């Protein structure tokens, strides 16, 4: 299911509360400041910091 575009503006990084960007393929949200990627499974983003991947290793 596509990510709801209208609600994107009320999402933020759980660590720094700054903006996160949706990856082009809609597979994850990314926080550029914290260098973290939050995976999206079946349309539901996982914003648990412990389960986020370092952004450097995330797929482009």
């Amino acid at each position: 299911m596509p990510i709801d575009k209208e609600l994107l503006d009320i999402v933020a990084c759980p660590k720094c509360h700054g903006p996160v960007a949706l990856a082009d393929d809609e597979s994850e949200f990314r926080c550029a400041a914290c260098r973290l990627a939050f995976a999206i499974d079946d349309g539901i983003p996982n914003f648990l910091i412990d389960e986020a991947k370092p952004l450097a290793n995330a797929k482009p």
Partner: protein
Amino acid sequence: MVQQDVLETFKATQRVGWAFFAPLENLTTPTAANLVRFAGVRAGQTVLDVGCGTGVVAVTAARKGARVAGLDLTPELLERAHENSRIAGVEIAWREGDAEKLPFGDAAFDVVVSQFGHMFAPRPEVALGEMLRVLKPGGTIAFSTWPPDHFMGQMFALFGRYLPAPPPGVTPPPLWGKEENVRAWCGGAVKDLSFERGVMLFPALSPGHHRESTERTTAGGRKVVELLASDRDRMAAFRTEYHELVAKYLEDNVVRQEYLMSRATKV
């Protein structure tokens, strides 16, 4: 200072423990409507449901025309929540996350609600601080919690007598059901704090039926069963105590479970 890894372990246990809660959504559906009414949710508002479980409050708010996000720690419950919004024909931003680390910006919501959800976060001041952070000044925070002196609070206390003590720094959830605690934790961050009592009706053919449901669906109930599986005497003692407790609240095949609703305006 509480050890961070102790809290993370506690949360990981909670996350798994609540995975089987979905069948109880029939009971939390009517009380969800009561909370949405109490919170005064209107069309066009942005609403966050913290500890949304299967999404009953979030879906109710969305059906009123609000733009809603629902957050929970347990992926199995979010799967059901997603299904619930699909069936209802509403779009909701479901998020897997921690009530103590909300993935939202400051002052993002008009209303922040929680139905028997945020009360299970280990540190009231942290969860409440986050809920107030993401709430707009002048916005409404409203939540339903179980008081310690009524059935559910007594049930949690019973679990507590048969389970190991929670790690230091974890506040017992029913403390959220006392008005003076809510008042103290909110402090000067809110105004117009008010309270209302509600009743959740739990149909049960016998005390045993209620216990069987609890042992199957709740984190505490499942843990007791797991822990006492090899201790028949203690298991029997637990079940006897449970039946005695339920019997006090069971009348005409319904268990009356009283709860507290709190509502305030962010300063």
